[in-house]
């Protein structure tokens, strides 16, 4: 924690920086930093939003709300509805999150609460390195290793054991919703682990000590003292993972099968919003087609932005609570 004196002098420095200095070079310096740094960044963000909205306006005008609840995507007839892609994105993301959340929270709890520091730290470093592996490399592994494995081993086993369940219906293609969900789980685990670890580290040690002094076991101290305290931050970590999963493009495009259909079976090929943009954007030969694809992007953009804002607010609220209690 910074003591009061440096904070005050930093404020003084900033006050001087903003109002005090009256000589020309410093005014030029401040102007450059503001114009080319802060303002450019802000304008850039504004341009991103504006260009997405402007490019999709034609499609919004033509299809209106039916874009969201119709399934026909036919460039020849100039008929566009995004429901199929929204379905694929939502199912794969939720599937990925269902798999990734318990595992990631387990890893974070293990690294922070149970493992000796050297092991906990090494796990965090390895997980962070894995987060740096590009999506296209995971997709490469997905196509040549994971998909054949699913097709030959996993999917036939499920189909044989649950012949009547619509969830596991149909021939084992390998590619499909299940493959997409699995690859997304692998991709969001590092995100959720990293953030939830950061959140749990901010829980004051006194919380745990109090529980242990009362005779609680390690697990009881974790579930009663640490997890409730970190709850909103952990939720933030999961939401951030969801945001990442929704917008993930390359790895999913490579294993989902890219067939626009809505099917209950996890083994059927499907299509996601990000994949349709990746596959069709360069083939969009007329304005309305391009505009419809951009509208798919705008939807994705809006949803991920909301997820991100929500996640940051949740994580921030935990951090602030710890600071107020003098923790961290």
């Amino acid at each position, binding site marked *: 924690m910074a003591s009061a004196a440096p904070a005050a002098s930093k404020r003084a420095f*900033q006050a001087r920086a903003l109002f005090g200095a009256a000589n020309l070079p410093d005014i030029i310096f401040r102007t450059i930093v503001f114009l080319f740094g802060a303002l450019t960044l802000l304008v850039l963000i504004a341009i991103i939003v504006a260009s997405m909205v*402007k490019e999709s306006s034609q499609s919004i005008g033509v299809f209106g709300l039916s874009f969201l609840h119709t399934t026909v995507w036919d460039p020849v007839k100039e008929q566009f509805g995004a429901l199929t892609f929204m379905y694929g994105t939502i199912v794969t993301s939720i599937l990925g999150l269902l798999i990734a959340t318990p595992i990631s929270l387990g890893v974070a709890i293990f690294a922070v609460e149970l493992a000796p520091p050297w092991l906990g730290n090494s796990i965090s470093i*390895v997980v962070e390195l*894995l987060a740096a592996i*590009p*999506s296209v*490399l995971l997709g490469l592994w997905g196509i*040549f290793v994971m998909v054949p494995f699913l097709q030959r081993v996993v999917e036939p086993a499920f189909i044989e054991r649950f012949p009547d369940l619509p969830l596991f219906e149909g021939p084992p293609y390998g590619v499909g919703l299940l493959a997409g969900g699995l690859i997304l789980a692998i991709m969001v685990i590092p995100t959720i682990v990293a953030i939830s670890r950061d959140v749990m580290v901010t829980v004051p040690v006194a919380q745990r000590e109090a529980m242990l002094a009362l005779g609680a076991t390690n697990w009881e101290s974790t579930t*009663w003292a640490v997890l409730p305290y970190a709850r909103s931050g952990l939720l933030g970590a999961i939401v951030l993972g969801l945001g990442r999963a929704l917008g993930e493009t390359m790895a999913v495009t*490579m294993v989902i099968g890219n067939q626009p259909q809505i099917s209950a079976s996890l083994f059927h090929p499907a299509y996601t919003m990000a994949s349709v943009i990746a596959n069709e954007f360069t083939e969009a030969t007329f304005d309305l087609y391009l505009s419809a694809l951009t509208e798919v992007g705008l939807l994705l953009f809006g949803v991920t932005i909301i997820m991100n804002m929500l996640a940051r607010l949740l994580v921030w609220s935990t951090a602030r609570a710890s600071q107020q209690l003098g923790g961290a």
Partner: protein
Amino acid sequence: MASSAFNTGGSLPRRQFINRVMGALLCLSAAVALTPLLLVIGFILANGISGINLDLLTKLPKPVGELGGGMGNAFLGTAILIALASLFGVPIGVLAGIYLSEFGNTGFARILRFLTDVLTGVPSIIIGIVAYTLVVVPTHSFSAVAGGVALAIIMIPVVTRTTEEALRRVPNALREASLGLGVHEWKTMMYIVLPAGLGGIVTGVMLAIARISGETAPLLFTAFGSRFWQDGLGNPIAAVPLQVYKYALAPYKDWHDQAWAAAFILMMLILILNVGVRVVTRSGFQKIR
């Protein structure tokens, strides 16, 4: 609430048993999480290493159906794209970082900081659409510049936030000492604060480069890819991740081998950048303390 939870915990042996079972499960989840990720690295190493040769790095791709050739143009293209992205992105990112660190207590700065964090989470394919609208549509051509702009937009928030963090770690006493001697603010910044925070800024830039060097989605309809040596910045340009993507989906065994080999090189580059930066900054911290 806590006391009632304690009561339902049961006898001590039972509670200790639960503790041990949960401990084992957590340990298992760590193993489950790391396995697929290590499998990915393992397979890329195993399948990629045999395909590494000088041809891959120096030759052009052969026409479809002919064996051999390489993707030298893609490696050159990725280097050009990284250079362009850094050229556009680093100055804006560093200046915005300076602003947030030195003048960052205003409401405007707080909003900007929040938006920057949110920008980090925007899917990279969306950035591709934006760069397409901003550069490809007006110039009527896929180009290296368009790819550079897309990658720069991804780079900027990373550089901004790491620059801010690095400058915040510079002790205020340094600023005060300099200003107290009557040194101008801009000189204090240029000769005192920036040099002190330079290590952190370079770290941020390196990590940003590691991130963009593997980006594929934003290049699909900006850089577009090419099978020839680069001819000016206004033309489509090849990139390693694009080439890996195209080769992986193609039906030729020879192309698959090249995709693995290129993936191997790309992954090593990214891991070395990440590990190197961590090792350097760790030793740097110890020196400061």
